[in-house]
Each structure stands twice: as C-alpha cells, then as structure tokens.
C-alpha cells in the first residue's frame, strides 16, 4: 500500500502556547501557498487601482484640484493599508489569504495586534516593490553608480526578497519584524467514529478476533494510515483494501485467508481491535509509534 499516496501533505508544524497554556499546533504555510495568496492580492490591488484611476479621472474632471487631492490620498491609502486593513479586520487574512485558507497569527501565542500587522506590512516595500523595480529598471538604483555597485545593491535587495526561501519557517522580513507566522487554517470535518459506525447491513459485533501478539505488531502510524484508507472514497478503494488486507494477513500469519469480498470487514475489525489495544497501552504510558522492528526481519 502506498502510505505516501494516502497521507495528506503535512507541512512543518510550529507549536504556539495559548494564554491558557495549551500548545496549539499550527501548520506553517509553504512558499507556494504564500506566493499564491500574495499574487491574488496583487491582482485585487491592481484591479482596485484601475477602478480608482478611472474614478479619479472623472473626479478631477468634475472637481479639479480637490478631486486630484482626494485621488492622491486614495492611491496612497490603497497601497499602504490594503494588507494592514484586511489583516487586522478579517482576523489575520487578506482576501488572497482567505481564498487559500491561510492566516497570520502571533508567533508567541498572544492576540494578533494592529501594531504587529502594521509592522509586518511596513517592510513589503523593500521586500517586493523595490527589488521588482530594481530588476525591471536597473537604472533606478542610481544613474551615477558604476555597474558593479548596482549589482551589489541588487543582490542586497534580493536578500530581502528571497529571505523566505532561506529559513525553515518560511518567514519573510515582515514576519520577523512583526513577530508573526503565516499558517494554514483548514476546516477539518468531524466524521463518524469508525469504531462506532460499522459497514451497514452487517452485524454490529466483530466477526474477527485477534490475539494480543497480533495486536502488538503495528503502531500508531500504521493505525492512522489504515483509518485514512477506511475513510477514503474513490475508484481504487476496493483494490487498496484487498491489497492491504493481504499484507496485514501475511504479517499477522492469519489463517485461514479472508475472502476477498470480506476484506473491508476484516480491516475494520482489525482497526477497532488495534486501536483499543494501542489506546490501552497509551494510557499505561507506552506510546508505540511504529510497527515492531523485530517483525520486520525477513
């Protein structure tokens, strides 16, 4: 069975201790997600600018200098406070972040303050806009500078732009200055407990009984992969169930072999028994993460 295929992509996890003293595990957003959210925000920002431009042309035509003053301030506010506004009003998410289910949180577990949000967006100028301009128009770095000096300045600016690629937590300078993290905020659904809900049209009682030795082989990781398989939907489900059932039977030295059509029932009963056993051990202070190394010798 391909565990890698079934297991959801897991990112880096950072623990943040809440004021109640319970560590919450945040999964950090990866570079791609963050870049995607930022691009989306840029598109929104650009469209808003175009709308504003049209509006200000009309406004200047109608109201002259005052209209121009209003337009100038509107552009300034849009560019400077777009991120700050949404991140402090929408609980740490700009429209782009919201679309990708990302959030800004305080790195130390406190509430996300407006100051932190403002500080983390203050550096966007040197992180993104300045390097972008420098790349597109190298002359803007200073016309009088010799070529090598421009190259050095460009490299210096790129250090800021590319900083997220060089640290484990994918922090950009703004995150460092504001003391914030960008994390995934997925909505997990609470599904039926597998041990409660048996495949329908079958008896509620377990049909297969397992010995203690058989239940001591696998660990928590295998149990949870099995859970994922049992919960999965899709065309290859039956094939996977049969394949896994055969592997498990081989491992447990199960006799006589389980009929193919009963594979799900077998795995289901095995899941329930296995979970009961592992949770019992957990309560006694023994956490068995993986299957026994000894049984792997073949």
């Amino acid at each position, binding site marked *: 069975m391909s565990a890698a295929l079934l297991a959801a992509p897991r990112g880096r996890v950072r623990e943040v201790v809440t004021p109640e003293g*319970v560590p919450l595990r945040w999964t950090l957003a990866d570079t791609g997600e963050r870049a995607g959210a930022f691009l989306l925000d840029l598109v929104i920002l650009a469209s808003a600018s175009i709308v504003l431009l049209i509006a200000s042309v009309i406004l200047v035509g109608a109201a002259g200098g005052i209209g121009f003053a209003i337009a*100038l301030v509107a552009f300034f506010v849009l560019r400077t406070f777009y991120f700050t506004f949404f991140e402090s009003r929408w609980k740490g998410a700009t429209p782009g972040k919201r679309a990708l289910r990302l959030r800004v949180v305080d790195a*130390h577990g406190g509430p996300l303050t407006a100051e932190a949000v403002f500080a983390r967006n203050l550096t966007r100028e040197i992180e993104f806009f300045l390097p972008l301009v420098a790349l597109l128009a190298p002359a803007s770095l200073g016309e009088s500078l010799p070529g090598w000096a421009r190259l050095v300045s460009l490299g210096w600016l790129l250090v800021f732009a590319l900083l997220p690629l060089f640290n484990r937590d994918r922090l950009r300078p703004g995150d460092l200055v504001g003391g914030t993290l960008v994390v995934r905020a997925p*909505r997990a659904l609470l*599904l039926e*407990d597998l041990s409660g809900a048996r495949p329908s049209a079958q008896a509620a009682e377990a049909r297969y009984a397992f010995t203690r030795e058989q239940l001591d082989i696998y660990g928590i990781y295998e149990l949870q992969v099995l859970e994922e398989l049992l919960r999965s939907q899709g065309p290859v489900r039956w094939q996977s169930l049969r394949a896994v059932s055969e592997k498990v039977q081989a491992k447990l030295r199960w006799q006589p072999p389980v009929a193919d059509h009963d594979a799900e029932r077998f795995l289901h009963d095995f899941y329930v028994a296995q979970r*009961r056993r592992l949770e019992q051990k957990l309560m006694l202070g023994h956490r068995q993460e993986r299957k026994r190394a000894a049984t792997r010798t073949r």
Partner: protein
Amino acid sequence: MKSLEFRREREESWRELEGLIVRVEASGLVTLTAAELSRLPVLYRATLSSLSVARAISLDANVLEYLESLAARAYVCVYGAKRPALEAARRFLAVRFPATVRVLRRQLALSAALMVLGALTGLGLTATDPNRFYALVDDDYAAGRTPAATTAELRQVLYDDKHPADVLGAFAMYLFTHNARVGMLCAALGFAAGVPVMLLLFTNGLLLGAFAALYQDRGLGIEFWAWILPHGVTELLAVVLCGAAGLAVGESLLFPGRHTRLVNLGLRGRDAGVVVLGAVLMLLLAGMIEGVFRQTVHDVALRLSVALLSALLWTVYFTRVGREGAP
C-alpha cells in the same frame, strides 16, 4: 473504548462551538447574541481541554485533526477580538503613540543628532564654498534654486502664491504621500541593521544645510527658516521618528540583549510600527501646513510663531501625554 466514550460526552459542545465559529468567521462577532457571546470563551476553553485529553488518550486521527483545527479557529476568534475603531484610534493617539516614542528616546536622540550633524555639515561646507552646493544637491531636486540663481528668484520661491486655492489641496496631499512613503521606507530599512537609515538621515540633513547656507548667503536666512519651519518642525520630527524606528529595528538585530534576536526583533518591530504609523499622521498634518498655510500666509512673524507653537505642542505631547495607562 475510552476515546469513544470521551467523544460521545464532549461532541455536543464541539459542535456548538463550531456553529458559533462559522458565523463569526463569516460576519464577525456582532452576529452573536449576548448569550452566545458569553458561551464563546467557555466553549473555547472546554475545547482546548478536550484537545489536551484527546492528545493523551485518543488515536482517532480524524478527531485529533478536527479538534486541532477547531481550537485554532476558536483561538483566532477569541483572541482576534478588536476594540471598536474609534476607541482604538483614541487609545493610539492618547497613550500608545507618545508612550512608545518615549520608549525609543535613545534612538530618537541618535536619529535627531544624525540629522543635525548632516545639516551642520551641509551648512559649513556650502558656506565656505558655494560651489559645493552642486555636489550636495541634485539638479532635479534644486529646481533652479542654486547659487547661480539671483536673489530675487530665490526670494520668489519663499513667497510663491501663484497657485489657485484648489491646487493647494492637491499639492499638500502630494507632499504628504511622498513624505510618508519616504518615512516608511526609512523605517523598513532598519531591517538592514540600521546602516541605510543613518545614511538617509544624514543626507537629508545635508540637503537642508546646503539650502540654508545658500539663503543665508543672500541675507534671506530668517525668511528661509520662516518658510521651512512651520511645517518643518512637524515634518522633520516625523522623519526623525521614522529614523528612530528604523534604528530601533536595526539595534534589536545587532544587540539582541536578553532575548534571542528573533524575539527581540518581533518586540522592537511592533514599537517601530506604532511610531511609524504616528509619524505618517504627523506627515499628513505637515503636508497640510506646507501645502496650504505656507502658500497663503507670507508674514514672517506669523510663520515663525506657528513654527514655535508647533514645536511647543509636540514637546508637550511627547513628554506629558499618556503617562498613565502606558503599556
């Protein structure tokens, strides 16, 4: 199974919390009734405790994942709560801003000293040899105000009033947005260990000094200061504040002190954010004085008294306001 019993006991409260959270996420805390609002923290804590228990006893990956995600979402709702905008603005102006400026007073002193040093250097250099003006000031920036200009032309700039009233507003806002962006850039550059900030402050001072020397040379010294100071007091102070914020950020990286660099940077960065936000507001004020007042009022005594008054007001504001209730 223990984990199944546990889930049966607690599931109802998780579902209740989830229902509240979905509504808060969609349209904010205001949608909750008073009773629901008082339930929110209770349910949040109950869920946190469920999470702790589940981590200890349950191996149901789905329940764990669900609780992790629910607790995280609830945490954001409970601790992301905002003060009303007006109250937040009042607190910012009355306490947070002046108090934070006082926290950064050492950096403020250094930043002001750098600018004054720059100004004195510019003044000294240009006073001894007017031709050095060209080395210090960019041609575009000078816009004709060079040693080659006649005294009458230089004087003309100080009492420029050919703009109709409605252009003044646009001019004021142009000055504001330009200055504010420079100020924010100045603070953000603090991340590069503060070196560019010092350079910016110093060269800013150089420019000011060079112009002062030029006007001094033509006997327009007092009138020059009367022209620049009514808004300059506010504007230069705001620039110096942005510089101080940048220096604070740079300092936190170079000399982290008791915390680790990252923690320290996070702490100082927020102070910097507060100061820069306040400075942006000050620049808005300065832009209005510069764009409107300076273009319409030409009396030197009146100009100077406005400068003096604003200096006095800022001194009182930054030394006296918000002493109680400071963080």
